[in-house]
């Protein structure tokens, strides 16, 4: 695929995708060791979606995320130290330890929060898009949501609303073909989810969500459409999660062959291939980047582990302004 991206931008994308992958491997490991409470929903395998889309966003643009939100947060510029501290419930974490994996947010970076409620994000994304339009900021509101979430009423209400008022929004469907333990085709009567755009009279596209350059290009058009006042776009990214619904747990119901086939389409390998072909990256330098990122994640783990827990008095703070 041809691209307008220069080598610096491409390397930045590669590094961000590696960061998401390594973060998720670490989070998965720590969850297995019961060092992280509750549940983590890992984004490994879907990195190209978050990175391809967020490569067009400024700090003033916003994203609404999902329960599988770590990748969105990193791609939007989130700090892995603060994320890991949050996963451990520490006071230095993004939400002072009050939210955890499913609620990481950074309002300053335009990250309106991961979300524990499937379909919780789209209406909020509409609100952020409306505010951008109202205030004339030129900002764009991106809503990430899973294939499963498109069966919630809130998703449909939000698309109609955004379409009606030409709001500067991009609705990204991460179609990883499963919702928990049920395949997408058992949850909906259509499998090409971008077809739903027709119901709202907005453009809809499906792209290869494992190819960050393809995502980048399609998202670029969608973001530009939103920014120039031409309303929302529905962008379906065809992707796959490499692990089970939560953590790296056993009992994955997805067929072994299906998993293996998608593993062959690892977004990191695909981008790496492009970078090597263009002589932007050698196998060796890719390994060096991975090692640097691993060190960064190790430092973040140390930071998180050494960080203090919240004071008990914080239990009753932050409820009202």
């Amino acid at each position, binding site marked *: 695929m041809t691209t307008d991206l220069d080598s610096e931008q491409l390397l930045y994308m590669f590094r961000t995708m590696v960061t998401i992958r390594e973060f998720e491997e670490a989070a998965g490991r720590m969850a297995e060791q019961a060092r992280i*409470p*509750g*549940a983590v929903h890992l984004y490994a395998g879907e990195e190209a979606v978050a990175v391809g889309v967020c490569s067009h966003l400024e700090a003033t643009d916003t994203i609404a995320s999902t329960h599988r939100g770590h990748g969105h947060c990193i791609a939007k510029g989130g700090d892995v130290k603060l994320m890991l501290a949050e996963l451990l*419930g*520490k*006071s230095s974490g993004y*939400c002072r*330890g*009050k*939210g*955890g*994996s*499913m*609620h990481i947010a950074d309002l300053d970076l335009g990250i309106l929060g991961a*979300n*524990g*409620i*499937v*379909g*919780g994000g789209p209406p909020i994304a509409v609100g952020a898009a409306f505010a951008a339009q109202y205030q004339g900021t030129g900002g764009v509101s991106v809503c990430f949501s899973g294939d*499963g*979430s498109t*069966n*919630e*009423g*809130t998703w449909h209400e939000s698309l109609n609303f955004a379409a009606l008022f030409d709001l500067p929004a991009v609705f990204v469907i991460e179609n990883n073909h499963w*919702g*928990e*333990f*049920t395949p997408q085709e*058992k*949850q*909906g009567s259509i499998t090409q989810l971008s077809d739903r755009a027709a119901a709202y009279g907005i453009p809809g596209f499906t792209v290869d969500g494992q190819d960050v350059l393809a995502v980048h290009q399609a998202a670029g058009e969608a973001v530009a459409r939103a920014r120039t006042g031409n309303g929302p776009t529905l962008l379906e990214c065809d992707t796959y999660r490499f692990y089970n619904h939560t953590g790296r747990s056993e009992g994955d*119901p997805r067929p072994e062959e299906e998993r293996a086939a998608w593993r062959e389409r690892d977004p990191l390998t695909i981008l790496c291939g492009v970078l090597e072909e263009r002589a932007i990256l050698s196998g060796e330098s890719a390994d060096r980047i991975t090692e640097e990122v691993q060190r960064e994640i190790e430092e973040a783990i140390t930071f998180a582990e050494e960080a203090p*827990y*919240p004071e*008990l008095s*914080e*239990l*009753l703070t932050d*409820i009202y302004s």
Partner: protein
Amino acid sequence: MTTVTTEVTTDREISYREAINEAIHQEMTSDDSVFVAGIDLAKQGDVFGITQGVLTKFGPKRIMDTPISENAITGLAIGAATQGLRPVISLMFIDFIGVCFDQIINQMAKMKYMFGGKARLPLTVLVNAGAGTGMAAQHSQSLEALLCHIPGLKVVMPSTAYDAKGLMVTSMREDNPVFMIMHKRCSRLRGPVPEESYTVPLGSAAVVREGTDATIVATAYMVHEALAAAETLAGEGISVEVVDPRSLQPLDTETVLESVRKTHRVLTVHEAVEFGGIGGEINAQIAEHAFDHLDAPPMRIGAPFSPVPYSPVLEKEWVVNSDQIIEQTRRLVSG
């Protein structure tokens, strides 16, 4: 199927979760108008394991995996119930009632009354409540009081495997919408459960420990915390009676009042936020109907007025525990 209504002794021990599962299997066997629907209920047997084995035994007509569409799942139950089916649906976490609250409070709860009694809604809604699992603010709530506040809904909240099965059978035979609230931390608790089908009536509280100095009315997992507290207090010479309402709507006020008339002191305990919780309602009824029997003002314990925090240190602080119950009971009996 034979039905036993009195308590049966048995050596067989199964878990709370297995008890509800067994009730579903037995009712589905005896009544083919029962069907089950919800997210990941069929093939996966539910993320909490409640519907294990149902698909294999009854086939896909009787249990369906639905899209993630809580409004439609709830409406499915309501509409099908009007047509004579007996739906059992699961909304997974009780927190998710927020997604389909219109179907619950404006449709399900009111249909019979608004239609002048013409509708009959024999349906059961399964939901899982409770904190203490590190699942944070949107997956840990105890929202029973919201449901109890809506005329037209019935609400049960068992604490033991025995009651879980008996209440599940009763709920499935009810001609009204019943919310079966399962507490996550009760789910693995084991206890004696007869294999044969039996019912625990709605609106019948259980005195789970007898005592003379104070009554603790506790719900769901708090029953176990209250029993632990009662054990410690017994060592201090304080004799505590523990009452588990089991069903919150209808509420067996009489059993509670009877206990209070005997002990003259009462403490209500629930995991839900204290303000506006069911404990306030129970205490108000006691104040109204047994004021003259009270030697001290009714007390209550619920969670602090905050969403459920994620951090393990804050969550531990948030969730009511037996130490708090012990401390409060000491204060109650000394007052």
